[in-house]
């Protein structure tokens, strides 16, 4: 049987094109704000006066949002991912020697390669090398407390440091931060920009920390807690914790990958 396909196009219409499910393949998935902390979280008192109260304007992404800064090896120095050595003056810093490693992925489980990861932390006594930190615990003359690295082609990163100590802060009279390391991530577009904190498995302060509990979703909190990765420890040298980080996914993964390095 000869089936005649009907053609609804009129003279002068554009030629037929194949159906493509996404016209803006570079755009990121909508952020799921239900598992991020809300701006206004009164258990964290400083957020009260620093939280926008009007609705955010939902912006369909343009080039301004899907692009972002690109970093390379020229931006960082060889000791930047070694906090044991990058500020050592008279010897190594005091504290438990640890490696932190992990993979930066997007929500589609794709590695995020060659992206800048920055980290900062208190020293082993819970004191930051910062002119605004007045906690009575001592500064360590051999510890700066910051570093950075680029993920490799598979999204992996690692750095060496000492385990940070917990410290008191002014929220309630007796508030203490669990041991944590701050992380800053870029991804490949400015809409993926993220700052978060990594906590350590087994720390009893996690469950009573107001900043941790600005996050309304228990599973999302658990994903910030790095397990001990004994298989990756260096015998007689360093323990290792594993912290994987997930950035927003991109629609391009629905079909063809059109952006190099995306």
């Amino acid at each position, binding site marked *: 049987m000869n089936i005649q396909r009907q053609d609804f196009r009129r003279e002068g219409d554009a030629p037929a094109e194949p159906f493509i499910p996404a016209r803006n393949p570079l755009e990121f998935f909508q952020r799921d704000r239900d598992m991020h902390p809300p701006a206004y979280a009164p258990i*964290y008192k400083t957020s009260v006066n620093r*939280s926008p109260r009007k609705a955010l304007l939902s*912006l369909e992404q*343009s080039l301004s949002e899907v692009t972002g*800064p*690109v970093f390379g090896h020229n931006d*960082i120095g060889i000791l930047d991912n070694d906090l044991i050595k990058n500020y050592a003056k008279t010897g190594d810093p005091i504290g438990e020697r640890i490696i932190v490693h992990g993979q930066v992925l997007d929500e*589609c489980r794709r590695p995020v390669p060659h992206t800048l990861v920055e980290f900062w932390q208190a020293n082993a006594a819970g004191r930051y090398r910062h002119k*605004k930190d007045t906690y009575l615990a001592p500064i360590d003359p051999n510890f700066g407390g*910051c570093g950075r690295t680029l993920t490799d082609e598979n999204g992996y990163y690692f750095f060496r440091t000492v385990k940070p100590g917990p410290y008191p802060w002014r929220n309630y009279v007796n508030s203490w931060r669990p041991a944590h390391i701050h992380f800053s991530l870029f991804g490949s577009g400015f809409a993926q920009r993220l700052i978060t904190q990594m906590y350590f498995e087994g720390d009893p302060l996690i469950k009573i920390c107001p900043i941790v509990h600005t996050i309304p979703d228990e599973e999302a909190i658990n994903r910030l807690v790095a397990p001990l990765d004994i298989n990756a420890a260096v015998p007689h040298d360093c323990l290792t914790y594993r912290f994987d980080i997930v950035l927003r996914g991109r629609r391009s993964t629905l079909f063809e990958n059109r952006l190099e390095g995306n």
Partner: protein
Amino acid sequence: MTQALGYLKETASQTAGPYVHIGLIPHMAGFDIFQNNFGNVLVGAQTKGEHIVIEGRVLDGTGTPVRDALLEIWQANAAGRYNHPADRQNKPLDDGFRGWGRTGAEFDTGLYRFETVKPGKVPGRDGRMMAPHINFWVVARGINIGLSTRMYFADEAEANTADPILNAIEQEVRRGTLVAQRSSRGGKTVYTFDIVLQGDNETVFFDI
């Protein structure tokens, strides 16, 4: 039961905290550690375009300057092209102009400052041109998830009137919160852009 979609969930945001300067701008925290610091000067003498200074303050809900804020900007070059592989417009890149900068508010005054060039126009989603703008991202102690906004230029009134993002702000009275005023000081063009976190004049922030 259904099949599992298998997506991962984005890692939750946490505040950058009071000591964000240590990690991201250690020279402002009071010590020297990296060979190369990221800073607030995006341009060199050879960078093409109109050289400008942007300065302002981040203000909390009581009108008090947020003196520990950290700000980043991301922008196109003077020709209107982003230095990123996804921008495939047929416009020139400017060697050495990354288009990104970072700074902290001054601890005593709360003032921040960038030195850059005025960006050209970039097309929006539907191909219509957006008015020249600079993308801002603000974090600080007490900010639980980074705040995204844009700065537009007061002397681009015609382009601003046609800009699809400014027009998407329903309350016309709020559009001005994204427009920086131009002035001249010591031979330099200065745009003043205050960011108000909360209150009657709250800056328009985006969910991007």
